[in-house]
Every structure is written in C-alpha cells, then in structure tokens.
C-alpha cells in the first residue's frame, strides 16, 4: 500500500510537470512559431521575391522615360510598402545601383530596407534620402526635431488599416466603438461583441512601427490596456490590408469588416471602409539632391501611380 501511494505521488508530480510543459507549448511556443522562411522572419518580408532588375521578381514593371543619373537618392521604407519602392528602383534607377547579398542590401546599394522605424531614423540621420512609409510617430517626429531636421511628407497612395483575428473566430465584423472598447479594456470577452465566450487578447505592435503609430492615433486619448490573462483567449491584432492579404497571405487569419464594410480595394476607393490612410514619400526639406523632386514627380505621375496600384495598393490620383 505504501509503495502504491509513493508511485501515485511520483505519477502526479510527473503529470503536473507535463501539464505545465504542455500549457507553455500550447499557449506560448506554438503561437510564436513562424512557418515561414528565414528571410521573412528576419525582415518581415521576403526581399528577394521583389528584387528590382531580377527577371523572376514579383516587382511591378512600368515603362518610363525617367532615368536617374548622378547622385542617386537612397530609397528605404516600410515592409508593407517595399514592393512599391523596389518597383520605383526597377523603373528609374540604373541596374548597377542596387546590390543584394542574398539576405540584405549591401551598404553601397541605392535601395535599402530598414522597415518603418529604421527608415525614419535613416532619413533623419542622413543615410536615406527618400522613404516610403506611413505617417511618423510622435517619437519619430521628436527625433527629427531634436536633430533639426524638417521632413516633407508627400501622399502617394492610400491603404486600409485592418483588424485581424484567427480564421476560426466566429466574429466577422466590429464597430469602431467596439474596437476602441476592446483595446481600452472595456470589452474583455468576445461574447460582448458578438463572439464566443473567450477572453480577448488584444495584441499590439512594437513602438514606432507604422501600424502601432496608426493604432495610437485611432485610439486618440483612450489609453490601450492589455489583459495579462488574454493569452488564454482569442487574439485580435492590426496591420495594413495589403501586408495581410498580399504579402503574408496566411490562411489562418482573416480581416474583419468595420461598421459592416470589408476592407477590399473597392471599399477603400469608394470611401466606405472607415479607416483609410495615405502613405507617403518622405524626404528632408533641406536635402539638396536634385533627383528627389524628379522621384516625387515620377511617383505622382501616371507610371508611378500605376506602380502603386499594380503593387496592390490604392493610388492617390
């Protein structure tokens, strides 16, 4: 009998640790695992798939008489908008101005990729001349001001800001009030917004990323809160439409309609989707590079806007 009790205690102890290990796997590790390439993990986008001048590239190609020479502006920008600035390099830059080592662009390449945070730092520090990004965050503007740099933002296209959930989440639509309520902590359960009885895990992005900046602006004065036990429930996150539907294309997530309107390209154009924002070509006002006005003119031209549209976004003109 004593041996039986001892074996039960040992068995229960092993079962308890197995339960803890399983929970860590189920609620943490399994969710962190990316079933995507190393390149995608490192850069948020597969740079090689949209390389300029590469015949197998997915990059949009347009015919134009504009060809830059001389002091070439260094291009950089957000992951979600990389297909655009890569297509711009393909259209108007000399082929030998772009160098890619298989993982990143080399230091002397006129095309660079540092994502939104890195790009805003690069343009202020002077290592990039023109970046394609969403609006800068307060911190990024403060950094520019601190360095005495004034930024010029030229809108070149529109994009929908979207909310995403697991494709098995029964919720397909939220109102703007519900989204604010979820992120401010007023709604804690999906059941309160038409879903099933799971906690809401409202995910945020890194400070300074384009989508986090947009989300903070959407929330206005309402502070965002996190439910420490949210990981036990169903998640919601935010991003930009084409990054979700065109670049990542993960069938495990779906975009939500807002106020009954799905974030389709048509609904961005007809103005019915409620959160649409411009994205910008950004440069320093004091940058004397004569190719910058040429690039801006090209981006707003018929060919430049065709790059925006055929890359999957909505042109500004």
């Amino acid at each position, binding site marked *: 009998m004593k041996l039986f009790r001892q074996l039960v205690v040992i068995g229960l102890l092993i079962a308890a640790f197995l339960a803890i290990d399983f929970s860590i796997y189920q609620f943490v590790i399994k969710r962190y695992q990316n079933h995507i390439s190393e390149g995608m993990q490192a850069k948020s986008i597969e740079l090689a798939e949209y390389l300029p001048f590469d015949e197998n590239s997915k990059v949009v190609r347009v015919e134009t008489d504009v060809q830059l020479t001389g002091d070439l502006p260094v291009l950089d920008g957000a992951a979600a908008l990389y297909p655009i600035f890569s297509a711009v390099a393909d259209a108007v830059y000399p082929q030998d101005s772009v160098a890619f080592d298989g993982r990143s662009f080399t230091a002397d390449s006129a095309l660079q990729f540092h994502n939104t945070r890195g790009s805003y730092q690069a343009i202020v520090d002077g290592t990039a001349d023109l970046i394609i990004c969403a609006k800068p965050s307060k911190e990024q503007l403060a950094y520019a001001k601190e360095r005495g740099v004034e930024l010029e933002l030229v809108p070149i296209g529109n994009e929908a800001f979207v909310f995403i959930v697991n494709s098995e989440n029964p919720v397909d639509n939220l109102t703007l009030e519900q989204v604010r309520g979820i992120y401010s902590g007023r709604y804690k359960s999906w059941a309160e917004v038409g879903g099933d009885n799971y906690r809401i895990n409202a995910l945020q992005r890194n400070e300074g990323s384009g989508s986090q900046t947009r989300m903070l602006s959407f929330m206005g004065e309402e502070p965002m809160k996190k439910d420490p036990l949210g990981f036990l429930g169903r*998640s919601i996150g*935010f991003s930009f439409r084409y990054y979700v539907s065109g670049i990542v294309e993960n069938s495990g997530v779906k975009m939500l309609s807002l106020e009954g309107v799905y974030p389709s390209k048509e609904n961005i154009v007809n103005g019915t989707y409620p959160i649409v924002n411009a994205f910008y070509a950004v440069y320093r006002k004091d940058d004397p590079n004569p190719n910058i006005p040429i690039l801006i003119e090209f981006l707003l031209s018929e060919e430049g806007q065709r790059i925006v549209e055929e890359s999957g976004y909505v042109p500004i003109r």
Partner: protein
Amino acid sequence: MSERMFKTTILTVIALGLLSVIALVAYAYYIQPDSSIIAYIANGR
C-alpha cells in the same frame, strides 16, 4: 520503496520537471523576436 529512495526519486522528478520548464521558457524567449503578429494569431485562437 525505501523512504530514502522515494525522496531521491521525488527530487529527481522535480529537478527534471523544473529543467524542462526552464528550457521551454528559454526557447520561447529565443523564438519570440522572430514571431509575427499574424503568425501568432494564426497559430493560436
């Protein structure tokens, strides 16, 4: 099973159990920076 052997077995199970938890948490921290919000939502609920 003698009392001494029982205690040793319990301590061994606890040590191995804690080790497995630490290893899993360390692995989670290791892969966390490469995780994307989209993958996190798709892999969970």
